[in-house]
């Protein structure tokens, strides 16, 4: 059995004796006799070597694909070696939330740097220190738009279904009415927005690129919402922001998104990172931790958790969100990633995703996988399928290639910088074999 308690049992007995008890069980005298556990019904503990072997065996029941053409919210990217080196430093991994600023300047500064980078990416004024994931970020952003007489939200049906599911749960518990807007050719339909706007509308949640990979005309929606004294929240893809207009350039009020692409492994769904930024006027409605710059008594620059009176540990039931722990280490990962890539690296990354996916679309088209939409796309697109998508998925899996995602309307394909010409040509050859 592995154990992490320094003392032997006899040493523990000596400690007990020092404080006047004869057994550890005596310390549990307040626990009613009838509910004291006689023994846990779980396996005996194991040595480190055995546990590592067992876990490796479990992990081996997964298939690691050599080549991944699937996105749908989670994307395979190259992670620079320096990112893992830095973020596995023990101090960063094991520290608690930096409430004690004097011994936490490292973590606090890294969050301040992260906040700055998120503001730069999104072109907005204020960022928080992260929330659980992109879907929760969207739900929290919706709560930010609510006002006393505005408790309804419009949501485009072109958004990621995972995000929609979370929005529905969150809104239902707070009695916020969600109106789902029907798309037109997989783009949000402005007529549909107009039709559903009313004086109780607090805002619109829309994603660009949307679930189908298409770029939405955010500026038009922003103008419409503001004319109607409502807010617009854009769910955005952080990689695409190196190429496409930033939310701040389009008068978006709140930008949110999934930060997994910024140096985090896919990890079967997590941990990920929800980023949130907003216009300055909404600063005090932003949930979660925020780091600010100040000075210490000698005038030295110092970073602290600030605007804390917004938060649950002070405001309790009146807090606008209950969030406490967030995804600090993931935020640091994103920050290191963005620094390692730099502005040119991010641009190259975005262009690679764009170019590779457009090449993929062209090659697939030659095989009869026709794009179903006409709109502009970034790195994901939807096609019809001349073969059963699930048969295709299975056959390609045998070659350790993960196909596009079979969805109701066809197949949703994705290519990133990892899907080079060579990898795409290999995929195309493999599909030819299947057909």
């Amino acid at each position, binding site marked *: 059995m592995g154990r992490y308690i320094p003392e032997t049992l006899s040493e523990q007995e000596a400690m007990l004796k020092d404080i006047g008890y004869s057994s550890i069980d005596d310390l549990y005298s307040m626990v009613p006799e009838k509910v004291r556990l006689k023994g846990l019904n779980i396996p005996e503990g194991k040595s480190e070597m055995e546990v590592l072997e067992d876990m490796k065996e479990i992990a081996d029941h997964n298939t*690691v694909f050599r080549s991944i053409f699937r996105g749908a919210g989670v994307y395979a990217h190259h992670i620079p070696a320096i990112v893992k080196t830095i973020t596995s430093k023990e101090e960063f991994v094991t520290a608690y939330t930096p409430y004690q600023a004097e011994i936490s*300047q490292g973590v606090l*500064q890294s969050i301040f740097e992260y906040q700055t980078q998120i503001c730069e990416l999104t072109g907005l004024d204020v960022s928080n220190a992260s929330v659980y994931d992109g879907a929760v970020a969207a739900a929290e952003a919706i709560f930010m738009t609510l006002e006393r007489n505005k408790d309804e939200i419009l949501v485009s049906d072109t958004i990621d279904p995972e995000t929609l599911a979370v929005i529905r*749960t969150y809104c239902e518990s707070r009695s916020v009415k969600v109106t789902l807007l029907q798309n037109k050719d997989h783009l949000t339909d402005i007529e549909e927005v107009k039709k559903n706007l009313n004086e109780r509308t607090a805002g619109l949640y829309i994603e660009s690129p949307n679930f189908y990979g298409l770029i939405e005309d955010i500026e038009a929606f922003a103008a419409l919402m503001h004319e109607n004294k409502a807010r617009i929240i854009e769910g955005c893809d952080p990689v695409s922001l190196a190429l496409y207009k930033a939310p701040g350039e389009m008068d978006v009020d709140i930008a949110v998104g999934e930060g997994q692409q910024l140096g985090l492994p896919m990890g079967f769904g997590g941990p990920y990172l929800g980023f949130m930024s907003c216009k300055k006027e909404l600063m005090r409605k932003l949930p979660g931790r925020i780091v*600010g710059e100040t000075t210490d008594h000698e005038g030295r620059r110092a970073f602290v958790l600030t605007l804390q009176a917004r938060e649950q540990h002070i405001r309790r039931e009146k807090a606008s969100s209950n969030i406490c722990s967030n995804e600090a280490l993931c935020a640091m990962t994103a920050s290191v990633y963005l620094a390692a890539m730099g502005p040119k690296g991010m641009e190259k990354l975005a262009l690679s995703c764009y170019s590779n996916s457009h090449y993929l679309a062209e090659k697939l088209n030659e095989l009869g996988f026709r794009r179903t939409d006409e709109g502009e796309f970034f790195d994901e697109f939807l096609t019809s399928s001349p073969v059963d998508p699930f048969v295709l998925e299975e056959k390609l899996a045998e070659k350790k290639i*993960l196909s596009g995602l079979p969805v109701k309307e066809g197949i949703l394909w994705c290519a990133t910088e990892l899907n080079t010409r060579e990898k795409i040509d290999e995929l195309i050859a493999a599909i030819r074999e299947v057909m």
Partner: protein
Amino acid sequence: MKLLFERSVKGRGSDILPDITTGTYKPEGKYLRQSRMHLPEISEVDLGRHYTQLMKQTHGVNDGFYPLGSCTMKYNPRVDEETASLPSFTQIHPLQPLSTVQGCMEVLYKAEKLLCEITGMDAMTFEPAAGAHGEYTGLLLIRKYHQDRNDSERVNIIVPDSAHGTNPASAAMAGFKVVNIPSNDRGGVDLDALRAAVGKDTAGLMLTNPNTLGLFDPNILEITKIVHEAGGLCYYDGANLNAIMGRVRPGDMGFDCVHLNLHKTFATPHGGGGPGSGPVGCKDFLKKFLPCHMVEERDEFYYFADPEKSMGQVRSFYGNFLVVVKALTYILTLGKKGIPEASGKAVLNANYMMHQLKDHYHVAYDQICMHEFVLGLDDLKKKTGVSAMDIAKGSLDYGIHPPTMYFPLIVHEALMFEPAETESRETIDEAVKIYLDLYEKAHSDPEYLHNAPHHCPIGRPDDVKAAREPVLKYEFND
């Protein structure tokens, strides 16, 4: 310390990505970005050194004693990090075909079974990403349960005044009204106040036991009975489970649902404020309301199933999966004897430390404690002017992370100590000596403590300035 942006020099940086090989596809038109993105331009070596400096200004669990009450800052085993870094866990897309993710499914399935046994629950979801997220999910279970019975009157969640701040905040977020009840003179639930508070409008009670004073409530069976008889459900806040795991189970104490903090009790690291994991367990009768994606097994094949009346999702996919890998590794390592041994030693450490401090410092509730205890420094402050904050800041100069300060709210000038089981006797003895020194210092040189710390990278920061004139990002000149 310079910021990343202050180290940036135009044109620097390393080539991480190859040149594009797929031709000359380029976007154009009205959707393209116009504004510049100020990201740092920095060489790899400078980037590495930047973070090494930041690392040196960060206090991790291995930098010294970390008795932060209610946070269970135990040692984070290295092997747990190693298993969670296996490429066949990290490189798995959450939307792969089921037959290619059987290993991940097995992790979730096994972790669920083990944690259900430890908590006395029948099912568990790993979707919640942190403790507060778990609270929210657990409360939605309670909400769904009452809705399903068409009982729309039950809108109140009862929360003792000693509760963690997340409890009332989560209840409000889940659409409930919060009814605060006072604690009794031993820091436990006041049974009369509870009896007076329950009724047809009671949806449930949120409780942590041991409570935030580190005391096990001996009336626990009576408490859960009162709530059940009134038609409410009992929610267990697992923040303090480290005191009792393997010794008594929330399920046996009458709780209907629980959340756990894997980043406390099950040794996964805190990461400077996350990622955590806040799984929620429940009894059979609540299972049908759990979030989607429950893992089930048939003929040695694992698959996802959505509960019949599922609340939907509270997070994308299946939660912070890699954190669950770490916790599973930990549980498999400790096993049936190691789990109760860990809780027992945590309780021993707390009593051992409290015993040595109580002749000088005032212990808020002087009785056997569980894994943590609370000092009230009200008298010290009146006598010397030295506050709980001053003592806490003083301890920083000795390389000790301060205990939790000014919590729970019901104790004035509170300092809450939780010396987790992985701390040795020598470490605690040294810490006790330091706190006794600080006690002396409070009498001999209070001014020195008002100005503490003296040997940290910065002195006390100006929190008022930070909040009055918020500077929340770096401002670029160009």
